């Protein structure tokens, strides 16, 4: 592999910006995510030429065109396969997969499932705008039931996929959620995703101003967010609200809201334990949804120590080569050859 190091330390956001016009609608949440990624990458200590961005098809999947890195805008739903090929071919690359709720969970659900279970060291950012943007506004598999869209004028009838629960079902080793309106939290989450060895799945709530404007407003707008967002912090109890006056505790095998955390001293509240190897804890968090619960933001689950797919493959090859590489001539000759003499 032809890799040489550039001086990584001097990188700035500018290095990751292309001269191309960005062609999203004015006001689209994708701009903010692009910005956050461009601000994250220079800080990772990785040489610029090591980044590869792979995407499928959708508004979100135009992402690689706007990043001055190696990039591959592939076909609808299949980016996980391409990203897998890139990473296995060269495990030294930092591979980022950009997908949408349609791309990643409708047509591409299976590839995502298998990527997650194989645990390649790839960062997956799923831009969830709960709609098909690029095809002009049909409902997506994350749209709420009853959603009226171009293709469902009487309201959609299928139950949405919960991206977090889906990822847990695939036994993903890193599962997180962030939102386009919070630069700081996005950057923090993306850094954690890159730091994690194994597949990092990040759901990014993203606003589509044209076809699904303000879907996340009830939880993300200035007024509501203190009560509607719960920021997860490892080892800290699950609290939210003005002055952290509300919390989450266990009730049997379900969760409930404690209205005042004052008296309890927090002791009966659930402690955030993203490294709990049993997915039941993260499953509980995945069920906290608007309007009954605050929406958890941050890292739901983070399990270190599971070997990655690409490392295992390399290891098998290294093991079998420990006494030297195979000779091609010997291989062709095989064990049952015979000589024909003149």
């Amino acid at each position, binding site marked *: 592999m032809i890799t040489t190091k550039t001086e990584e330390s001097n990188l700035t956001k500018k290095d990751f910006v292309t001269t191309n016009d960005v062609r999203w609608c004015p006001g689209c949440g994708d701009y903010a995510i692009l910005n956050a990624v461009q601000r994250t990458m220079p800080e990772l200590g990785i040489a610029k030429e*090591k980044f590869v961005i792979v995407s499928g098809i959708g508004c979100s999947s135009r992402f690689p065109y706007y*990043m001055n890195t*190696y990039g591959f805008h592939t076909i609808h739903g299949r980016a996980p396969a391409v990203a897998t090929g890139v990473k296995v071919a060269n495990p030294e690359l930092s591979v980022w997969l950009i997908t949408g709720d349609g791309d990643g969970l409708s047509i591409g659900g299976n590839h995502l499932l298998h990527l997650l279970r194989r645990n390649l060291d790839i960062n997956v950012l799923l831009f969830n705008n709960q709609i098909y943007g690029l095809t002009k506004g049909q409902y997506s598999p994350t749209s709420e039931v009853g959603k009226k869209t171009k293709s469902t004028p009487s309201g959609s009838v299928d139950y949405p996929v919960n991206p977090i629960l889906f990822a847990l079902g695939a036994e993903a080793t890193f599962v997180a959620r962030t939102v386009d309106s919070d630069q700081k939290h996005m950057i923090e989450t993306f850094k954690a995703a890159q730091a994690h060895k194994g597949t990092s799945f990040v759901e990014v709530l993203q606003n589509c101003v044209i076809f699904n404007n303000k879907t996340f407003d009830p939880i993300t707008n200035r007024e509501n967010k203190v009560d509607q967002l719960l920021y997860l912090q490892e080892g800290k109890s699950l609290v939210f609200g003005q002055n952290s006056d509300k919390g989450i505790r266990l009730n049997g095998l379900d969760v409930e809201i404690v209205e005042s955390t004052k008296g309890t001293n927090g002791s009966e509240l659930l402690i955030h334990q993203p490294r709990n190897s049993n997915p039941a804890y993260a499953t509980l968090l995945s069920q906290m949804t608007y309007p009954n619960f605050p929406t958890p933001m941050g890292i739901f689950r983070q399990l270190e120590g599971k070997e990655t797919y690409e490392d295992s*493959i390399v290891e098998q090859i290294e093991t079998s080569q420990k006494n030297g590489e195979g000779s091609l001539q010997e291989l062709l000759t095989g064990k049952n050859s015979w000589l024909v*003499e003149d």
Partner: protein
Amino acid sequence: MKTSADLFEEIESAVVRFAGDSGDGMQTIGERFTDSSAFAGNDIATLPDYPAEIRAPAGTLAGVSGFQLQFGNRRILTPGDQPDALVAMNPAALKANIADLPEGGMLVINVDSFKKMNLSKAGYSSNPLEDIDFRKKYHLIELDLTSLTKEALSDTALKPSEKVRCKNFFALGFMYFVYGRPLEPTLKFFKEKWAKCMPQLAEANSIVLKAGYHLGDTMETARNRYQISKAPVKSGLYRKISGNEAMVYGLVAAASRAKRNLLYAGYPITPASPILEGLSVLKKHGVKTLQAEDEISAMGMALGASFAGDLAVVATSGPGMCLKSEFIGLASITELPVVIVDVQRGGPSTGLPTKTEQSDLLQSLYSRHGDCPLPVIAAHSPSDCFDCALEAVRLALTYMTPVILLSDLYIANGSEPWKIPNVCEIPEIENSFADTEEEFVVYRRNPETLARKQAIPGQIGLEHRIGGLEKDEDGEVSYDPENHEKMTQLRASKINGISKSLPSINLEGPCHGDLLVIGWGGTYGAICSAIKNMREEGFSISSLHLRHLNPFPKDLEKVMNGFDKIIVPELNLGQLSTVLQSTFSKKVISYSKIQGKPFKVSELKEEFLKHLP
């Protein structure tokens, strides 16, 4: 009593077929017989034939598995039209195969399986062995294999059921006697396979094999014995090779000659799985094999690996080809090298998954939406898969394009002797890599080949984006009308231009005549045999076999013009005929067979005769 040597009859070639239940080990003894014949210096061609079920109910017609081989002292091009000797392990095997045995042919029967239940499972209302006419028609040899095998093993500690399972080797030993085959390769095989983990089994099979052989020696009915001298082949080191094996080795050799790492992504499917399996044991050679979740994913993984600089290969069969077409379109527009092997089987749909056919040619050419031409080549024999793998890789890397390489079940599973090439003599394969010293313009082209250059992630300063939208030379997305036309034409010209790099056509026979036979793929052996025969008989007939199906060799039209008539025999409804007619607007005669089986030489001759003056 005469000594057996006295009875040897010198013959040129022979065709033997083993038939039995799926669990009877017919493929195994077929393979052994082949090895033994190769060892004896004969040329050989084989045809394994088994049902789609893993193990259909014992004793039924659905469960019959067969293996036919032809071996001889001359160039053997096909496994033979019909067996000279048939070994039938049970009534179902007899029923399924007897129609192919000519009168007077040798028929070896395992009589203990001709019990009522088995007869009725096979659909016999009475025992054919009791029919006098039947008995007269063939050179019948009845062996009580079960008892004979048990007897031979009476001194061993195997369980009775285990003993019985060795009976296929008794039959094999017997046939070794008939055709004077050496026992050594098979005894060696037993050792290698079982000596460590199951030495008893290695021992038992050796005993049984020898017992079978000796039975022949002592038995009165085995009056015919045949002797086949060595085939006059070029000197050198040989081995037996199947099409799928040759494909595996060809890919590994190509990667080595192109100095790229080989990454293979596959999803199991008959008859392509052995390529995945064969490559997966070559970790020592640095081969990475990924078993993907489906064929779409396998193709995507390959494309990703290609983008990252590996030599990327996939192999599948028809249903998998359907699933790859969208990604193949992406490979074409992004101009990334990747080799796509299609081991064809009977279609459409699930069709006849364990039978051969050549019916994916039009799909290979046209399965993508949009104008999306790409090179298509086809291997014509087991060992030719090796050469074709090299050629496919050459085309992919030189022209920066996906390449479809067609094989088929018949050549994939069949085998023949192969002169082992000297690795150093395999030509190097050049890459079209970008130069870090030069400005990198993603779709700027080599004026000769029209190929773009490839920059590999990890290379400093060559960062760039590719994708499925139309783009200009810089790689920027472009909806400009003229640009799209230009790019579409360029991509097409690049593929057409490959014909400049092709050798001129190698005609079998003179370049003028009454009839030209054009073939492709696995029908090579049968066509060649037929043509040779007929030319010897004085007919004005020639043949050519196309390796390159898109683009065609540049001299094809000229060659075609040298003949009064052109006939195209194919195991499909006439797909190459369609392509030839559309390319040259010239009528050709299509001769189709769609039976999941290769052509017989006799069928071809009969058909060719119809079109000769």
